[in-house]
């Protein structure tokens, strides 16, 4: 299947949930997904369209739009296409369903996005900080308005 037929299959199955779908190049699809049904969309992608490889899952902060994006990059071994799906979440209370039940390797991606952006993944099996120490938990250091950077001048520099 090429990119256009995948888009038509997705939008035909989920006309409400998939919007702004476009073909970026021959091998890249960009689409936006409603956060409520992201698990069903991922399950359809994996089981019916054989997109079995979750390459990456990440967050992105947009303070001017007051939104945090959760980005899913999903590849396939059968089709030469990579899908980039984005779910837009409100910035003050970002919550989305976890997709660990579909893609097991989303576990650590979601833990990292949680500790860096504060995106709360519902029904995640073990949602705790992955890399950061305890003292940084709750500060969400990758958000654009994070203010906790060290301002002590290193004395060795001067």
């Amino acid at each position: 299947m090429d990119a256009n037929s995948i888009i038509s299959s997705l939008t035909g199955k989920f006309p409400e949930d998939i919007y702004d779908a476009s073909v970026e190049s021959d091998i890249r699809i960009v689409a936006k997904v409603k956060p409520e049904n992201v698990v069903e969309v991922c399950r359809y992608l994996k089981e019916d369209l054989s997109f079995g490889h979750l390459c990456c899952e990440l967050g992105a902060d947009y303070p001017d739009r007051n939104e945090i994006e959760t980005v899913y990059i999903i590849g396939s071994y059968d089709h030469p296409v990579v899908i980039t799906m984005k779910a837009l979440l409100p910035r003050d209370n970002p919550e989305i369903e976890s997709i660990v039940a579909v893609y097991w390797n989303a576990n650590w991606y979601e833990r990292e996005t949680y500790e860096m952006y504060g995106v709360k993944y519902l029904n995640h099996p073990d949602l705790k900080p992955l890399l950061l120490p305890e003292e940084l938990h709750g500060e969400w250091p990758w958000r654009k308005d994070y203010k906790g950077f060290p301002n002590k001048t290193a004395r060795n520099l001067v």
Partner: protein
Amino acid sequence: MDEIEQTNVEQNDVLNVGYTDVPGTMLTESNAICDFIKKTKIQDVLNWGRKNSLWFTVNAMGCCGVELLATGMAHYDTDRFGIIPRNSPRHADVLIISGYVTRKYLPALKRIWDQMPAPKWCICFGDCAISGGPFYESYSTRQNIEDYFPVDVYVPGCPPRCEALIQAFVELQKKIEAKKDKGTEY
């Protein structure tokens, strides 16, 4: 900071072992003998021995750690200066901070430092250890490492060469010989 508290508790447990049970031993709580020796020529002999057996921990923290490992290999033959890489901090005299110190790693590094028996010295190896390097102003980097460790020698470079590390050891040996090092209180 829980790690550090735990280390302190462990150290107190070690100190509370009854050495008086061993026959032929005396226990003193004052530093009088040690302080007296520091004023005499015996300290020079002690320092001569200490400066010629600077064993360092193989604690490769970043990319400078590769140079650290290479220094310990056969090519540079650091044994001619009495410098030997040791895998356990309990056998080592010199802690080489060879990378950026993150907030998460600092308690572990302090624990390594506490595990090393005195007299012990500290070398900052590379730009990251000195100032944070490219990770200066990161949310997870600790700056001003000399607040946490008594650093004797700084080695700038990104990364410094193995010869620079050997040079640092030679400088440290000179400091120890001149009784200017921070590892011992004179």
